[in-house]
């Protein structure tokens, strides 16, 4: 078994043993997918992802867009008649994808890195830098300019950053994960 296959096998085992043992009870009713607000954009829908896990196709899931688009609204887990915590499974796969360096949606990965780097430097988020940074990095410099204008006009944004005294220690911890 190749290295990456071993990793995928461990992910499947972890899901079935620790993250959500109830996965065995899924009978493919599809309620999770029916409630998912983003299912139409997913390559594999939530109920299909559950089945793919059981069929040893973790690689297919991690290399497709679903888990990275998922916004953790938890409607799936909420609706499941068998109490399968679909959301926890999606989240675990997403975290594993990140740790393996696979994050299929570049915009989102850029956003997370930028957000956490700012938090690392300041200890808190800083919206002006976040919004500007996102616009620059995604190449859409004038994205949402109308909203930005109104935010400034209504003085609805903090223009000066805030610093946490212990930010160095926070940064040390953050650096291990980004």
């Amino acid at each position, binding site marked *: 078994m190749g290295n990456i296959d071993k990793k995928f096998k461990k992910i499947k085992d*972890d899901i079935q043993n*620790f993250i959500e043992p109830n996965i065995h009870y899924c009978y493919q009713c599809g309620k999770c997918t029916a409630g998912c*607000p*983003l299912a139409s*954009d997913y390559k594999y829908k939530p109920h299909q992802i559950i089945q793919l896990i059981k069929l040893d196709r973790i690689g297919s899931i991690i290399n497709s867009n679903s888990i990275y*688009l998922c*916004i*953790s*609204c*938890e*409607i799936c*887990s*909420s609706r499941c008649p068998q109490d399968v*915590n679909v*959301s926890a499974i999606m*989240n*675990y796969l*997403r*975290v594993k994808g*990140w*740790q393996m360096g696979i994050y299929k*949606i570049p*915009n*989102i990965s850029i*956003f*997370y890195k930028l*957000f*956490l780097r700012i*938090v690392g430097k300041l*200890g*808190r*988020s*800083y*919206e002006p830098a976040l*919004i500007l940074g*996102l616009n620059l990095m*995604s190449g859409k410099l004038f*994205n*949402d300019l*109308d*909203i930005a204008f*109104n*935010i400034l006009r*209504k003085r*609805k*944004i*903090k223009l000066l950053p*805030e610093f*946490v*005294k*212990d*930010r160095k*220690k*926070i940064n040390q*911890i*953050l650096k291990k*994960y*980004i």
Partner: protein
Amino acid sequence: MENKSQNSKLNKIAYYPGCSLNSTAIDFNVSTKKLLKILDIEFEEIEDWNCCGTTPAHNISEELPIILSARNLLLAKGMGYEDILSPCVACHNKLHKASKIINSDSELKNIRDEKIRNSVFEKLEDMGFDCNQSFNFKTYSIVQFLFIKKDLIRQKYEELKNKIDTEVKLPILKNLKPVCYYGCMLLRPKNSIKFDDPENPTSMEEILREVDIKCKEFQFKTECCGAILSLTHKKAVLELSKGILEEATDSGANSIIVFCQLCQQNLDMRQQQINKYYKESYNLPIFYITQILGLALGLSYKDVMIDKLFVEPKYLKESNI
């Protein structure tokens, strides 16, 4: 250190604003604080609080969001508090999860969760915290907190009713025909937060009833607005949020009341974009529940920062308040 949280009546709490409440959700922050003052609730902002990491931290690691939130919990403990109020629902979600991991009486599901707890304690000790003590943190979102204080709200309202001339009652309240929109984060998963009903919640409506505000029936109470995708996948948010505005209008409402600033921003800041994209003409002000309660309990439009709304209530332009 005096344990200020021994007061089971919740009259003294630690306050965790989170990053956006100091910035693009300043109206939520200010209206909440002013409302707490009217209700005679003493609150202290957690000193040197850090960002909870919200979605980015949660999506790249299991431990990181817990470590970041646990630091805030321990800071509160250092100030003598174990009851924490967090208006931001996302922050509250993370604080709540962290409290479930580090609380002394928490039953962890399996050895994996125990490993996570030990690792979190290790990192906290590295930061200089003493983890060798008993923890019993209770975290509250604003709706949970206000629901607990329902009777107090009614009491204050009755007291003020006699003082405020009901004829000059603020036009916003007089003409309010709202629906309550709950969003995703607070009520799910139902086994975790254990508050209200995840499919047909009524806590907001019940709170508002205490100040004589009647809400319309609404079928989209917990439909997702698109949340953080606002920054990376705008189209999804426009579509999801448009659905909510449409359903609110069809329900006969002229406004929406929320308690999540991400929902508020998607529905309010993007309403003009939604109108343009879908060739609609929605004009629904999106109020924070703390703004409406504040107004009902005698605060002015300026006090609760009504002017920060992108979609301004018509009456605001007509009146001079």
